[in-house]
């Protein structure tokens, strides 16, 4: 897209400023907003997030006009990117602190990483392994490193393989990048992943 207008949804999730900083390097046309008019006017929508699944869902229901958002994503087919918890809430259900319903935009289950005796949360740089080609992952080196910061993730066995673009390994193999039509989710933080993160966001904005 030549001149994207990016709407960054803010539901009090914590890392929206960092995402804003990185996107600002790529385009000046970015706004942090939950306003229906901004969501409708945007060409690209991003849902950031840190913290717990259930808290995020609660805050999303409170502050984001979901009906408007859903229309833009499913009817207008606008490119949508969920980051970290913003990806996890796309699931059918999250199992942190009991069962909590997600948006079910990309069916699957979010549960704790089976890390054996590796410490949790999974904090640090880890590489992803590509399973399928995707428009958001072009121009990457073979196994690029991204910055992860989470204890929960989309369980690989609960997701349709056609949606799994890339996985990462920490105790178990889990979903790192998922895609369904115009909806994308990344478990890592592109806004904290320097060059690799920039390339991913550039790819996303060029859709």
């Amino acid at each position, binding site marked *: 897209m030549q001149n994207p207008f990016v709407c960054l949804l803010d539901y009090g999730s914590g890392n929206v400023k*960092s995402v804003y900083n990185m996107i600002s390097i790529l385009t000046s046309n970015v706004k942090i907003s939950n306003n229906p008019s901004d969501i409708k006017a945007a060409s690209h929508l991003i849902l950031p997030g840190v*913290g717990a699944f259930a808290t995020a869902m609660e805050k999303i229901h409170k502050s984001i006009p979901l009906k408007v958002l859903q229309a833009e994503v499913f009817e207008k087919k606008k490119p949508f990117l969920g980051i970290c918890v913003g990806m996890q809430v796309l699931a059918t259900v999250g199992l942190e602190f009991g069962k909590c319903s997600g948006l079910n935009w990309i069916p699957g289950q979010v549960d704790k990483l089976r890390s054996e005796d590796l410490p949790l*949360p999974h*904090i640090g*740089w880890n590489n992803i392994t590509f399973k399928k080609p995707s428009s958001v992952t072009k121009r990457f080196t073979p196994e690029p490193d991204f*910055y992860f910061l*989470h204890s929960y993730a989309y369980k690989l066995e609960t997701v349709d393989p056609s949606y799994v673009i890339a996985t990462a390994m920490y105790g178990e193999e889990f979903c790192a990048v998922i895609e369904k039509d115009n909806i994308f989710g990344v478990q890592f933080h592109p806004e*904290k992943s320097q*060059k690799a993160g920039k390339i991913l966001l550039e790819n996303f904005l060029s859709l």
Partner: protein
Amino acid sequence: MKKKRLIPILLLKNGWLVQSKQFSRFQNLGNPVTAVKRMSEWASDELVYLDISRDQTYDLRRNDLAYPNRHKIIDILEDVSKMALMPITVGGGIQTLSDIQIRLAKGADKISLNTKALQNPNFITKTAKEFGSQCIVISIDVKTIGGKAVVMNHFGQKATEYGPVEWAKKVEVLGAGEILLNSIDRDGMKTGYDLELIKSVTNAVKIPVIACGGAGEWNHFAQAFNETNVDAVAAANIFQHIDQSVYLAKKFLYEQGYPIRPADLLLMP
């Protein structure tokens, strides 16, 4: 595979980026934001930003520079987070949950507690509940007194009753996400890390430990990885001494086969 991390530490004193030698001698280096720009350009894995000011005056004492003379730590942090496309940990003078909230809102990913944690250990648990363990780093300053390793308080000046292993175990239970372990004796001395100290702590806790204090050459990083279980190595002064320092350090470690990200360059606007 999860990589080990190489983390530059920037020390901020009254608005100046400084060098520190054994927590007692300081030299003004210049503006903190330019240093962050360079660290970003050399693709540092993370950045730790510690405010070691002992009073609240932030002043570069001049207004004829291209970058603004900031008078509040929050403004400096805002400038810093615009430049850093990697995780930032901010520490120094954090007393309340609100202090933490403000810093996270300004772009910090993690915060570091030192004195406050020693004064009120339950604050660690409070913070973990509110913001999550993953954003809490407990900074532990250690000095050898009478042959024993002692955890120091208040800019490394007051001895506590804790030894480093004891305190590290305690903060892990209370909800810390990571530990930043500083050797006061080795600080700025370039003689290598205190490997015994580091080992004693990494053997005692499961949460990641970041080692700091004493790095004088790239080989010291390698030694720490070889002989201890640290998750990350950090250094302050050494990265300010030569150009492309972080890049060269990473190149050295990567080419020797250590599990870190390959050296890379980023162009920052």
